[in-house]
């Protein structure tokens, strides 16, 4: 059984092909890195996997379940979580409330207009525990608007982890971070248990290569190279795309 499998996935915006016959197989527990230059179609691929975009053709399988025709919101309930390249939090709410909203998304309680959210002690405790996992429990009651960029990146990851996903998609989790913050976030990602399969998009090769077990190189919506770190780094096509050699 594979954790995530893409079969001949295609997507075009008008005449522009952004995903071209992409095939990808990610094993359970694997740490997969997807790299490629700007405009390679990496985030589009994530949007297709999560259902934010509908594929023109092809199939998306999550633990052998066909997700292709399933609505984006249902995919979260099936164990798919993601973070965003551009931080997408609830800026007026506290960190705890942001994570609570994430927990609530998978709970039938989200439809309940009669109980007080503040009275849901179990839910709130889980939100704080998740914040503790990313080292932000001391800021739980602070509004997102009053936190640093690095802390917001961690909240993004906390919101995804709160949903106990089977497959976690990290879209450039180091974007905009300082060198120290990158190391911290990498260490944080390293603590995620192996029962969570991780697929990560990243530009920062130095940090990302430490994380990756297998790497997929995308270029103009196509998979150009796939293999282990050593294989991909040595591959002439990778060097051509990244170094212009």
């Amino acid at each position, binding site marked *: 059984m594979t954790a995530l499998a893409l079969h001949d996935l295609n997507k075009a915006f008008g005449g522009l092909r952004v995903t071209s016959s992409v095939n990808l197989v990610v094993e359970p527990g694997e740490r997969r890195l997807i790299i490629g230059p700007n405009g390679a179609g990496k985030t589009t691929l994530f949007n297709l996997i999560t259902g934010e975009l509908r594929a023109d053709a092809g199939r998306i399988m999550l633990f052998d379940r066909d997700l292709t025709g399933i609505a984006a*919101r249902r995919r979260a309930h099936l164990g798919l979580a993601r973070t965003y390249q551009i931080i*997408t*939090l*609830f800026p007026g*709410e506290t960190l705890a409330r942001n994570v609570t909203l994430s927990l609530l*998304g998978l709970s039938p309680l989200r439809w309940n*207009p009669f109980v*007080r959210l503040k009275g849901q002690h179990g839910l709130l405790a889980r939100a704080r525990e998740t914040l503790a996992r990313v080292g932000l429990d001391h800021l739980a009651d602070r509004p997102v608007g009053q936190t640093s960029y690095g802390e917001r990146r961690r909240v993004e990851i906390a919101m995804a982890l709160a*949903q106990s996903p089977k497959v976690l998609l990290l879209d450039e989790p180091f974007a905009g971070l300082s060198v120290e913050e990158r190391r911290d976030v990498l260490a944080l990602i390293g603590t995620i248990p192996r029962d969570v399969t991780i697929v990560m998009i990243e530009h920062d090769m130095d940090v990302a290569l430490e994380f990756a077990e297998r790497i997929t190189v995308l270029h103009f919506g196509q998979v150009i190279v796939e293999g282990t770190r050593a294989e991909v780094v040595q591959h002439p096509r990778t060097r051509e795309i990244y170094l212009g050699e």
Partner: protein
Amino acid sequence: MKRLALAVALVLLASLPWWVGNSYYINVATQMLIYAILALGLNVLVGYAGLVTLGHAGLFGIAAYAGATLVNAGHGHVVVTIGALAATLAVTAVFAVLALRGTGLGFVMITVALGQIVWGIAYRWISLTNGDNGVSISARPSPFGISLLSADAFYWATLAVFLIAVAAMAIFVASPFGAAVRGTRDQPRRMTALGYNVWLTRFVAFLFSGFWSGVAGLLYLYYNQFVSPQAVALSASAEALLMVIAGGTATLLGPIAGAVLVIIMKYIASAYIERWNFVLGAIFVVIVIFMPEGLVPGSVRLWRWAISLLRPQAPPVLRRESGR
């Protein structure tokens, strides 16, 4: 402190007919409460769901017209109330299904069109609505045998409904569903990725909003014992929207303050100022400039600022001059 303020407000509201005395002003207070219920309902969409609508007078009017039709068909007031609110909810559902196809300006324009359709029916379908002449009813209900014919009695009945509306809003805002509605306003994309059905969340919020607009419409009918196309006109929707925006969106007290302001200008200031509309417009401009967040949150901000000025300031830290 909050509980004390709430208790004082309740006592003042409940005793209003005694300390106001004049039945004209009691009736004005009744209208404030009716429009405050409409504004509270509208605030669910505009403030909490972030969906600006200009068609809510249509829903307000549907309840009033449906109620009037049922009363004139000889039905009792329980049937009238249930029937009018059911009709409002049914029309709200149609409004929501159509309007939620758009977002932003598209959503606003669809609600304008739907509101205008209701107005067109009220104005032109004369066999049903009596056209421009409107529909009159001959009686107010007498719940539990209590006559609501006097200004005092109708005020208290309206106050009871108003307090239920405020309590319902407070419960809604603090609930998980209320949090979900606010989430769909702030980050609909993220909410979908988190597993929320954004469309359905907005649809249910629309129904909740429409329900309270219907309640206000029914009270309006019983208060005036008459309804005409004027009640469902675009200007009535705009007026309700201004109440919410002027008072402060996504707050519990804002729409109430906005309703009070507009009704004061409309029924009290208009007796002294011929061009009261001009003054109302000027007040809105002042609110937008100095309190863009609305009257209630803006006043709270200014109050805190004033308090901070009155507090003794800590002595400034002296900077050590660097030696040259």
